[in-house]
């Protein structure tokens, strides 16, 4: 492979940044969640890129674990969102502002 590793890292960085903006700008809880998944994926990409660069498979293993945990987290997170929806009839995070000062 003759593409410089940094290119992948730059793509990873950009995806991470986009994910961050998504978390902050969108109101729909599900879309926020999806942005978080995007961030996780960006990080996974970086991990694999570094693994290639350092010729160490630990990076890939870590990315693998990250995927497992992300799956578990998505499952629980969606259950929570469903619960909240049942109570509030809304998935807008702006509506969950009861703890205001």
């Amino acid at each position: 492979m003759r593409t410089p590793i940094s290119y992948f890292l730059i793509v990873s960085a950009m995806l991470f940044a986009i994910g961050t903006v998504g978390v902050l700008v969108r109101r729909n809880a599900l879309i926020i969640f999806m942005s978080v998944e995007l961030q996780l994926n960006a990080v996974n990409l970086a991990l694999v890129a570094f693994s290639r660069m350092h010729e160490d498979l630990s990076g890939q293993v870590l990315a693998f674990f990250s995927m497992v945990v992300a799956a578990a987290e998505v499952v629980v997170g969606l259950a929570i969102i469903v619960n909240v929806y049942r109570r509030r009839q809304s998935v807008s995070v702006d509506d969950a502002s009861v703890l205001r000062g």
Partner: protein
Amino acid sequence: MPLDHVVFWVFAPVSVGSAIAMLLQRNAVHAALFLIVNFFTISVFYLVLGASFLFAVQIIVYAGAIMVLFLFVIMLLGVDRHESLVERLRGQRTLAIALGVAIALELFLAIRAGVGFATKAPPGFDEAVNRGGNAAALARVLFRDYFFPFEVTSILLIVAAVAVVVLASRRRRAITRAGSEAAAAGAEEAA
């Protein structure tokens, strides 16, 4: 032009573009679909980087299970309604975009300082590391050096499944069934 260059320069814009598109969609289902596209591009990157196992796992788990779960919930709750574009928090959008740009820039600088823009990957990856194929090599590392974490993650998945059942359970059995079915499907797919 080498193949990986072509692949990279085709899929990188698609990746970033689909991510941005996901951000801009007002319909949640459309956003989920764009994210799936993004996941596909990432899996291609994995392939190019020599992680063929992860390439497969990414598609199967992320695009195939997690996103499907998302779509289930979106459609179940019926929240694919169009979200209003009006931002109620003053300065949130501006600041968020600024923040995003800032983070990206900082990371670029970090990359340049740490790795350097021109560094290429060492060439002997397939022979030296991926001996017997990426899956075999990964299995060797995973089941020897990282065996304990591996077992822990299995416990994690069981805990997640239990948690979902508890969280989603309700007296009204009709909705419960759908919630736990979706949770069970996700748990099985992930493991």
